[in-house]
């Protein structure tokens, strides 16, 4: 078991916002079971804001904590604000992740962005340039 920060352990022990929104406005999936981590985010959008964010996660301690943190960070944000959440910010908010977990488990922001893009496509909204920087800060 890697050394995890207190924040990671706290979110792993008490993950927030688990679940799947019925009739979601957007769905985003990232990862796969072969690499060991997989996340599915569903979002509810109201008045340009993320009214609700839920997820299901298959993965290690870091992946579960990341999903939980992303859901907390994104809830209540405007779509633009949420699209600007980076994997790096998520890791920082969790007090850091072990080096070897940065790439494989830190997929939460990517999955969230996919859900938002899914919503935008359904609504016919053109995504802005910055929203395509899915992997920004993933180093």
């Amino acid at each position, binding site marked *: *078991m890697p050394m995890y920060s207190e924040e990671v352990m706290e979110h792993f022990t008490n993950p927030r916002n688990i679940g799947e929104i019925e009739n979601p406005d957007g769905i985003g999936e990232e990862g796969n079971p*072969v690499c*060991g981590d997989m996340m599915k985010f569903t979002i509810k959008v109201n008045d340009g804001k993320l009214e609700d964010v839920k997820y299901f996660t298959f993965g290690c301690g870091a992946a579960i904590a990341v999903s939980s943190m992303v859901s907390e960070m994104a809830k209540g944000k405007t779509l633009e604000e949420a699209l600007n959440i980076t994997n790096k910010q998520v890791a920082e908010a969790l007090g850091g992740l072990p080096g070897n977990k940065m790439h494989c488990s830190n997929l939460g922001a990517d999955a969230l962005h996919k859900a938002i893009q899914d919503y935008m496509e359904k609504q016919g909204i053109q995504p802005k340039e910055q929203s395509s920087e899915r992997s920004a800060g993933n180093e």
Partner: protein
Amino acid sequence: MKSINLDYIAATPVDDAVLQVMLPFFKEDYGNPSSGHTLGEKPRQALEDAREKVGRLIGAESKQVIFTASASEANNLVVKGLIAAGKKRGNHIISSAIEHFSVLNQLKTLQKEGFEVTLLPVDRHGLIDPQALKEAITDRTILVTIQTANPEIGTIQPVKELAAVARENEIPFHTDATAAAGWIPIDVDDMGVDLLSLAGDQFYGPKGAGALFMRKGIRVRPLIEGGIQEKGLRAGTENVPAIAGLGEAAKLAYETMEPRTQKVASFRDQLKDSLFKEIPHLHLNGHPEKRLPHNLNISVEFVEGEALLMRLNMAGIYVSSGSSCTSQALKSSHVLQAIGVSPELAQGSLLLAAGKDSNVEDIPYITEQFSQVAELLRKMSPLYHQYLKEGKINANVQ
């Protein structure tokens, strides 16, 4: 807070009797076994006592036993030492896909240096077919090295049959018995093996002492050159306390073999039955019968192993996993891959290794916690919800 170790494959505590045998050699009888004076006598005698005890555990003569610092070192001495001795000309080594990394990684390096390596496949239970070995042998083969039993899935190989094939072709046969020694009866003559590795920390001896059995006529070059300790095959002042401890552990393992391993196997079987009864979607990895008495390896469908390990750890239950997240290399178990376990199930694999002090009275607690953890993690797994949905769809179709 409960503290239940189900990871005795990682380490066993040093037995009290073993510790008592070790202690004098730290201070009282601290001498160097190579000394010609009185201070060397007891340490020298301790090494020879240990050699005899280890020999007895594996049916070997004491003069055929060489002490090392670990089983990994013994495995390195076999592969590198045999090649360096160059007695039999050739460049081909045969092993299996599920060996320990102390064998596999050496073979990988040798391949880069131009050696040919054949890794025999295993069936879905982890067994190697002696016929496959027969077909893999060429006139360039210089060594066959196949483990006695697998530490991860517990499968016990038909070593006797495999060694017979090697012997017919006059090729040295080595078996890595690290996971098996002390847990199943071993007799090097009955098995017909030429070399065998083991380590005492697998059976209540201290860390830092291993041994290599080497049949007369086999030649290896030392990895560490210097003094003529261990007949010149392992230079460096002997770790007398650890070797004395290994010897005593071997003696105890030999003397208690039947009742101890029966008790452990009974615990393992009851735990398995309890878990499979209470928790749906579990899969057994490894052979249903031909397996080490303390080994239970199961995949928990729809969830990932490290999360399971961490949640069980919070409940005071210590296990290990073959998931990629729990390995430093971030690769899922090569053993589970070789027996054809799907990537998803390999990620959800747990190794439960019992020990002589495992208590059947803990099984209800372990089962209850295991069940809760599996349910909690499944409830947040997209794979589980996908399964539930597809189940419903199938039901509607019917």
